[in-house]
């Protein structure tokens, strides 16, 4: 009797483990997750501040093109993982009216962030956000966090974790389909 029970318990454990593996294997990636945010579908908080070069920068309330807002730190491994893809994305969408990139330093020294962006080849504006107000306005809790803002100024996507250029392409295509 006890032996049967143990066997059934073992089988149940195996079934649960197999189900768990199947669920995990079916996920697109463990490092990226498009999650829910109270900001989704709502007007994006104002993007304005000082860049690493010391210049002022702001994004219009309705930018007229997609804006990818990326919160990062130079020391964070997923940020380093997604960095090259962001440069690729920026190059592929650099035509006027397509999409633009804006980075925000989140939990990092400005000198380290500047060196990192330079090494990466990121030529887009990087805001310092020294008082953390921009991160709070967007409810950022972790790095990297990426927001996609639609041409009408509404938040179209909120992604926590390393993104790829293809992820962003899909998000923008979905946003275009939604707004079409």
């Amino acid at each position, binding site marked *: 009797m006890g032996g049967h029970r143990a066997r059934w318990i073992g089988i149940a454990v195996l079934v649960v483990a*197999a189900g768990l593996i199947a669920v995990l294997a079916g996920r697109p990636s463990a490092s990226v997750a498009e999650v829910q945010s109270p900001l989704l579908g709502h007007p994006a908080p104002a993007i304005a501040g000082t860049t690493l070069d010391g210049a002022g920068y702001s994004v219009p309330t309705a930018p007229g093109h997609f804006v990818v807002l990326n919160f990062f730190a130079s020391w964070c491994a997923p940020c380093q993982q997604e960095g090259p893809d962001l440069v690729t994305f920026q190059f592929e969408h650099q035509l006027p009216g397509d999409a633009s990139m804006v980075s925000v330093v989140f939990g990092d020294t400005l000198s380290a962030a500047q060196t990192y962006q330079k090494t990466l080849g990121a030529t887009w504006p990087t805001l310092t956000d020294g008082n953390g*107000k921009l991160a709070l306005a967007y409810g950022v809790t972790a790095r990297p966090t990426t927001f996609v803002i639609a041409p009408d100024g509404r938040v179209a996507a909120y992604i926590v974790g390393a993104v790829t250029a293809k992820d962003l392409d899909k998000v923008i295509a979905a946003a275009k389909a939604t707004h079409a």
Partner: protein
Amino acid sequence: MSRQSGRFRFPLWIVLGAVLVAALVIGSGVLNSTPMTPAQRAAGIETRIKCPSCEDLSVANSSAQTAVVVRSTVRQLISEGRSDQQIEAYLVSRYGSAIVLVPPTSGWSLLVWLLPLGGGALAIALLTVVLIRKRRNGIVGPADAARAEAEFDVGASSGQLDARRQFLEQSLADAFAEHRAGDLSDQDYQALRRRDTARLAALDIRMVEADDLAGAGSVATVATVATVATVATVATVATVARAESDGGAEPVESAVAPPGSVPGPSRSRRQRFLMTGAVVSFGAALVVVVALFAANRLPGQTPSGNPTLSQQAQIQQSLNQAATLENEGQPGAAAQLYQQVLGQDPQNEVAIAQLGWLEYQTGSQGKSASLIADARAKLDQAVKLNPTDYAARLYLGTVLLDQDHDASAAVAQYQAFLAANPPASLLQQAASLLRQAYTQAGMPVPPAVPTA
């Protein structure tokens, strides 16, 4: 009814409950009519707001940058005259409801409040029922349980007694196996062993008595009952003891199981079964994790990983990888590598020229004058940095021919291109453009240019 028994006795637990309620009410501060200062309000809100970048820590208890920003925002909003609810609503509108440590009392979150209360009430109700039943049945301890078993044995049939004996023997064997596997402490094992041994002895006496009564045995037989039963029980226990002293080489179940019974799998077999399952599951999970996190190797990247290279070697490797990506039709990825090279070496004319050429192609496809202008600036810069860079000359000549329709200027660049001894493959690809430029400029096509 006497005066003594009829006197009203106020239950002590009611007094204790009243004191507890009064203490909670006073401690909660609901009776305090003094208005809170802004600092007190801020402190109260901060204890209810979760640090955005921490795990289960309020902003009041965290020194993380995000917590500091939230604290300053809370104080700023208080100074602006916002109510506590408005401040919490503002933070929820940014971070979501998870930012509030105290769950709301509406919607699904209400379950968080109700389930513990319901569970507690259910536990108290079950406990009460069990205690009442025990009290009614008079079974409140092990002695009562043993007495009840003895009463059961008295009225039991021979088959029931046999089954019970098998059960007790199995229980002894299980306890031994668990003790041997380390799942049962010495103290617990000895207690269980004493209990089951005593039960077995009592049961053996009962069985012999039953046999004797059934067979109308003599007084002499009855007199030997105790001896026989004791011998039988001692034999069983001795078997277990022998297995203990042998170190448990054989499964104990088989040592004490009654003849004819089918021994179940031992605990060690069960453990092996579960362990095998766990190892297989872990291995499968490992395969999935490796498959999920394994990165694609870039063109030109060695299979053994990334050995430490000098900066110049790294730059050359990146340029090679970028050229491969460019040829494979991945201009974005190639541009990223060129940008990366420029991050390390801003004056690298190869990266500048290739990036300019990629920008020109993108700009001409999208008819972006600004992008074409950027591209031309990069090509000019590359030519200035290295006048013998044949690729930069070829690209600049092509821009001049395509955009400005200036064949003479294009030919000047193409002459420099030819003078730099370009590879034959590139010369072959550029031949038609060169012939077009020379023809439009009214100049003879040099013999170095391959014919169609």
